[in-house]
Each structure stands twice: as C-alpha cells, then as structure tokens.
C-alpha cells in the first residue's frame, strides 16, 4: 500500500519534470499535439464515465464541450477583443464587461455544462440504448444551432476569435491528472459501484434500491462537467471557436478513443487518447498527394480510424484494456516471477 503511494508520487514528479522540460525545449508543433493528447484524455474520461461505466450510450458530447468552450472563451476574452469580435451585434451586458481568470472561467464552463446536462438528462435519460443515442445526438445538434443563432451572446456563425491562449502543458496535464484522480476515486466509491450496477443490469440495480434516475443524471452531469472543462481548454488552446467545430465529428473522435481503449477502463482511455491523437498527426501524409499524377485524397487518414473502429468492434469487442486497470501490483507482478501475495507485498 505504502510502496504504491510512493510510486504514484514519483510518477507524478517525473511527469512534472517532463512537462517542465517539454515546455521549455519542444517546438510549438509538438507542444500542440501533447496539449491535445491531454485534452482528449479529459474528454475521453468524461465520456467513458457516461458510456463505459454507467452504460448510457450518449452521443451528446460535442454539445457539452460547446457550452464549456463558449463559456470559458467569453469569460476570459479581454474587453477590447470582445468589441472587435462583436462588430455586427454587440455582446449583451454584463458579459461585455466581465473578464475572469482562466481557472474560475473553466470551472464555470464545466458547471454550466453540467447544468445543461441535468436539464436535458431529466427527460432524455428515461430512454435506453439506441433511442438515448439518437436523443443525445439531437441535443448536441440543437446546442450547435442555438449557438449559431444567438448572435448577441455567441457571435453566431462568425465564432469567437482572439481567445487568450492561456492553455499550456501545465494546465492540460494538470487538469488531466485531476480528472484521472476524480474518476478513479469516483469509480471505486459506492457511487461508482452503483453506476456499474446500472450498466450490468438495470432491473437488478433498481431492486437493490439504487434510484436509476438519480444515478443516471448524476453520472451524466459529472461527465458533462469534465466535457465542459475539456471544451474550455480546447477553445483557449486553439484561440478560436465557432459552431462548426462542435459537429458530430468531434463526438466521434472521443467515442473512437473510448471504444479503442476499452469501454469501462480509465487506463485504456488514457493510453488510447495519446495513441489516437498522436496517430492522427503522424498519418497526415495520407491526406497529401502520395504518387505523382494521383490527386490528394483529403480525409484519407480518417478512413484508417474508421477501419480500425470496425475491426475493433467486430473482433476485439473489449478494446485495448476491456474493463481492466493499471496498478503497480500488476506491473511488478509481470517482472517478478513469484506470484504476489494477495493485496500486494507489504
């Protein structure tokens, strides 16, 4: 027990040193990829809580991210930038005068997103399976259409530009780490067990005294909170948001990560978020013209991921990790020939 705590702290320190070194030596291209990796970790974990651990097949993630991204962007943009952005219709007050620091803005973005999840969760979470997927997908599209049309708040289809690029490696890795901590702690708590019970068998869970509605909404809102935070990080990383960013494609990207990593595995999601995000960059050559005389096929690299998703769904239903998790005991169990005593060595 104690040994594991020491290793965990050591791993966090190593990660801290890595972030420090990376921040000072790596070029902006690699930094961008690393930032995206960490943001997709947050997004993947939040979706995995809803889809993987609670068994609610929700496709509304882009909607939650949009709420978080817009809220964070609007709260952190300097007043002058806001005036430049809203040249057609002025931004409503008091938003035009507020400038918040990054952290409270992110938190409010997350809370707002959780609140929206609570509002739509109440009616929608009575549905199951495919119907829930369709309803949540519809919700995400509705959010996008609303954001396109509420010009005095979101600047409509023009989007927001010049968002301060506060997001850096410290923010993304810090928040990713925080999200991992919260998720691990939640999943291993009594509430997490209740979520898993709902995933395994709703009828049995209900007759064991678990209120389905309360726990589904809870899981949905916590997931949406982190989706909102992830959206906020993304907006302030890229520096611009517009409604077209939050199409179904974004949800698909996150879904791809959790399916490849394993629905119901935190470890799987983290590994998969890094692998998928980095692979998406390395496979960019597929979008460029490869043979002389053959025109380029933009979007070819996404075909790789679609094919991969099909292969995984057909042949490896449990993804990379299934529902298994990383632990120090298991890691050392691989290296030491002797089997460990139950509960690890003391």
């Amino acid at each position, binding site marked *: 027990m104690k040994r594991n705590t020491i290793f965990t702290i050591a791993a966090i320190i190593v990660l801290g040193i890595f972030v420090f070194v990376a921040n000072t030596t790596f070029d902006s291209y690699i930094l961008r990829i690393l930032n995206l990796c960490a943001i997709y970790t947050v997004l993947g974990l939040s979706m995995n809580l809803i889809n993987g651990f609670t068994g609610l097949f929700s496709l509304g993630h882009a909607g939650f991210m949009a709420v978080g991204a817009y809220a964070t962007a609007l709260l952190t943009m300097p007043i002058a930038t806001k005036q430049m952005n809203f040249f057609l219709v002025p931004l409503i007050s008091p938003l035009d005068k507020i400038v918040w620091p990054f952290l409270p803005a992110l938190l409010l973005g997350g809370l707002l997103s959780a609140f929206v999840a609570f509002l739509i969760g109440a009616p929608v979470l009575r549905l199951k399976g495919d119907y829930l997927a369709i309803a949540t997908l519809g919700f995400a599209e509705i959010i996008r259409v609303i954001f396109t049309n509420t010009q005095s708040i979101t600047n409509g289809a023009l989007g927001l530009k010049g968002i301060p690029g506060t997001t850096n490696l410290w923010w993304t890795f810090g928040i990713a780490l925080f999200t991992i901590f*919260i998720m691990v*702690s*939640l999943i291993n*708590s*009594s*509430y997490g*067990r*209740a979520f*898993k*019970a709902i995933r*395994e*068998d709703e*009828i*049995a*869970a*209900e*007759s*064991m*005294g*678990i*209120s*389905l509605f309360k726990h589904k909404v*809870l899981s949905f809102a*916590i997931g949406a909170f982190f989706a909102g935070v992830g959206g906020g990080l993304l907006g302030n990383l890229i520096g611009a948001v517009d409604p077209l960013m939050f199409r179904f494609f974004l949800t698909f990207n996150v879904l791809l990560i959790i399916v490849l990593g394993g629905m119901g595995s935190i470890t799987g999601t983290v590994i998969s978020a890094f692998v998928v995000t980095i692979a998406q960059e390395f496979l960019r050559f597929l979008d460029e013209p490869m043979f002389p005389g053959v025109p380029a096929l933009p979007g070819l690299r996404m075909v790789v991921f679609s094919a991969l998703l099909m292969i995984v769904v057909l042949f490896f239903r449990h993804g990379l990790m299934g*529902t298994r998790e990383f632990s120090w005991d298991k890691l050392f169990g691989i290296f030491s020939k002797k089997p460990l005593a139950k509960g690890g060595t003391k």
Partner: protein
Amino acid sequence: MNVMKTDNITMQFGGLTAVKNFNLELNKGEIVALIGPNGAGKTTAFNMITGVYTPTKGRVLFNEKSIIEGKEAVKEKDITGLRPDQITGLGIARTFQNIRLFKDLSVLDNVLIANHLRVNSNVFEAIFKLPRYKREEKQMIEKSLNLLEKVGLAEHRDEKSNSLPYGQQRRLEIARALATDPSILLLDEPAAGMNPKETDDLTAFIKRIRDEFDLTVFMIEHHMQVVMGISNRIYVLDYGITIAQGNPYEIQNNQRVIEAYLGVDEDA
C-alpha cells in the same frame, strides 16, 4: 402481527387478467409460499408487490416500523405504485427467477452494491474520501464480508460472480438481497435448477437466515419438497385466481389444488 398485506390486487395486461383479487397477508417471522402451475401469475403477483408493475386495482400495504417518542410504533403505509428502489428502501428485498447478478463484477462488489441505498454520504464526500464516507465504506465492507461468511462464499469474494456454480450464485443473490437490510424477503423460485442435495441445503439455509436476520419470507417455489418442508402457510394460484390457502397439510388434501396440478378426469 402482520407485516404486509395486499388488498385485492389485480393486474390486467390489455384483455388478459394475469392476477385477480389477490389477498396476501404476511405475519412476522412466517415462511409463506406461493405455488401454482406454470403461467398462474405467481411472478406477476411478486412484481406488483415489488413495484415492477403497478396493480390495475387494489392496494399493497406495508406496516412501517418507526420509533416515536421512544416507543416503537407501527404505521400502515400504502406502497402501491412506488418504484422498486423505494420499496427496497422500505425493507422489502427480492431475488429473481432467472438469476440477475451483476455478472462481470466480483462477488464482494455484488454485495457492496446492495449496501449503497443506506449510504448517507453524498457524491463529493465519496470522491474526496471525507471522514463520514470512509466510516460508511468501512462498515459496508465489514457487513458484506460478514454476510458472505454466513452464506459460505467468503473465500470466493474476489471472483467474478458468474464464475460461481449455480447453487452458489443463488446464495449470492440471497446474500445481496440481505445486504439491503430487509424485513421481508421475497424469493422467486430459489430452488429452480438445483439438485436434491442443493435443495436440502437451501431449505435449511432459508430457515437459518429467517431466524438470524429476523425475516419474514415469501417465496414462489415449484419443488414441493421445499414448499411442504418449510412453509407455515401456502397460497395457490391458478389462472390468476387464488384457489386455496392454508397450511401444507390442508393444501395437500385440497381437491381444487389437486385438480389444478393433475387435471380433472372428464369421464368421472
């Protein structure tokens, strides 16, 4: 003293009346059985009591114990149409005819989940492991291990629940139901698919937990050996209608029951 009764509960599915005017009365500490041929409406009656179905007509009444001014008071409460989780919260736990364990979770987790309804800590206390939650979690684990010990599954606690043999899965389901702190335990065919040895064990087991946990047991069962061996009283359903009730001896000699099970000789 009765702990629960139903007042003419009736369940209709469209034009079909699955159960008609079922009047059940459970007295404290009894083991009561519900028998009847296939399709008689036994599980439907169960589902009305546990909130899976809302009866088309009639009421389900539960005697809720509460302590008022230091004295124990019993108040009759109408629980018709409450949700299954609310009914479990009041102290009526059930098992299922076709085992419904949380298959991919460990034996211990299965029992721990049933403790969740008594957790007072909120989700933040649980995430940040605040003192109240830590205390509750510790109590929960102790209680669950204790229960597993009593049903003889303690050494299997880390195994996946669907890797257990059939008889043990049945026991685990009962242990899980017990973890919700019930006063009434409803068992839906606990001996289904068991061999004679397992059936004997189960009979003794049900009696033991009844005494140990101060329970009232209401069960659906087909094994006549089990039913006649442990029931204080028996209700017989046929096509949704209660055709007989009484002690095992009376039921065994009831002409209508014999007819329902064996059929009527038309030449006679």
